[in-house]
């Protein structure tokens, strides 16, 4: 299990979702990805993408103006 960070700051939706999706394709099951965004819409959209594609949301938080979403890559998820 490895930890990764994805900088999606200044990107507006759906770009944070697309970057998350593309990054997860390169990761292994059990890897942890921390996505950092500035678009508050990412707080809804990235978890929604994870739910429908089977990845686990470990934590979401807002620090100052940054939205942080921590994801565990699941084998039920979309890796195609």
């Amino acid at each position, binding site marked *: 299990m490895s930890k990764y960070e994805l900088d999606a700051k*200044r990107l*507006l*939706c*759906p*770009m944070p*979702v*697309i970057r998350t*999706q593309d990054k997860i394709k390169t990761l292994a099951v059990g890897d942890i990805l921390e996505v950092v965004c500035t*678009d*508050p*819409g990412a707080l*809804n*959209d990235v978890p*929604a*993408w994870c*739910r*429908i*594609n089977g990845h686990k949301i470990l934590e979401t938080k807002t620090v100052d*103006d940054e939205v942080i979403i921590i994801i565990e890559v699941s084998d039920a998820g*979309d890796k*195609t």
Partner: protein
Amino acid sequence: MSKQRKAVSLISGGLDSLLATKVLLDQGIHVEGINFFTGFCVEGHTHAIRKQDKDKVKRNNALWSAEKLGIKLHIIDVIEEYKDVLLNPKHGYGQNMNPCLDCKGFMVKKAVEWIKENDFDFIITGEVIGQRPMSQRKETMPIIQQESGAGDLLLRPLCAKNLPETLPEREGWVDRDKLLDFSGRTRKPQMALAKKYNFEGYATPAGGCCFLTDKNYSDKLVDMWEHRSSRDYELDDLMMLKVGRHIRPNENFKMIVGREQGENKFMEGYRKMYPYIYCTSHNGPLTLLDGNITESDAELAARIAARYGQGRDADEVEMSVNYPDGKQVVLKVKPMLSDEIPEAWYV
């Protein structure tokens, strides 16, 4: 045991693609969604940028639809490839800069590539004959099939009974009798079907989420092209068209004036790309300058920008003009009066 057939559905986030997908799911087809981001589906960006809109509920409608349907959704960045569709539409533009027929053909073509790569059997869309004046007419539906290369792998469940049989129907993968015969601009059949499925809260944006159907946005896009040597664009250019008040005092340059705190903050991220102006003697907006700026342009822009700050009624304010190479000039100017700014300067 027969093979589980798989379809990919073009999910826009609107009601028609939601219903079309549900109709196929009810027939036992495995459906996954695909959504293409062209750079112009930017309906949520104003909410994301503007501070006064921060508390409004935001959602991506395609993700919402997929979650409602219980299917996977693949969102694909097609910004680069889409440029050719927008800049050279074979079938021309609609009422604004919307190349709807070419756009639909492009998206179905991308879906054809996707089903080949991912071993899916066919494609579905939420198109309805007569629903849209450009891309959803009986005459244009075969054009989309032909030019995309989808042929009879493209099934439109909501109006399939009004169209020739497709491969999934002929092969018995789907039951044609359970498909629908919607047509025309009325939305009543869709709304009735949504009610039957208990779909509530679906998105109903006029013209879809694409801002190329929006006159103000299209006008800004055309103005940008007319004042550059090339019609090429980047995603940042498209973002800028959604932000601020756009003023073109002369052919050399355009001003983008932040309208509120959220926009000013968003525009701060672009200070390395554009010359910019802000007021040092009073509170006021950030202004980005797009174009080649002479000294007299800078002074004119400073006077206009001062108009939108708290020093608008002062005899003189101090404006800092900053260039991407680090050069900074402080100008003392008299803010322009509102009636000194011609209406024609507003893009």
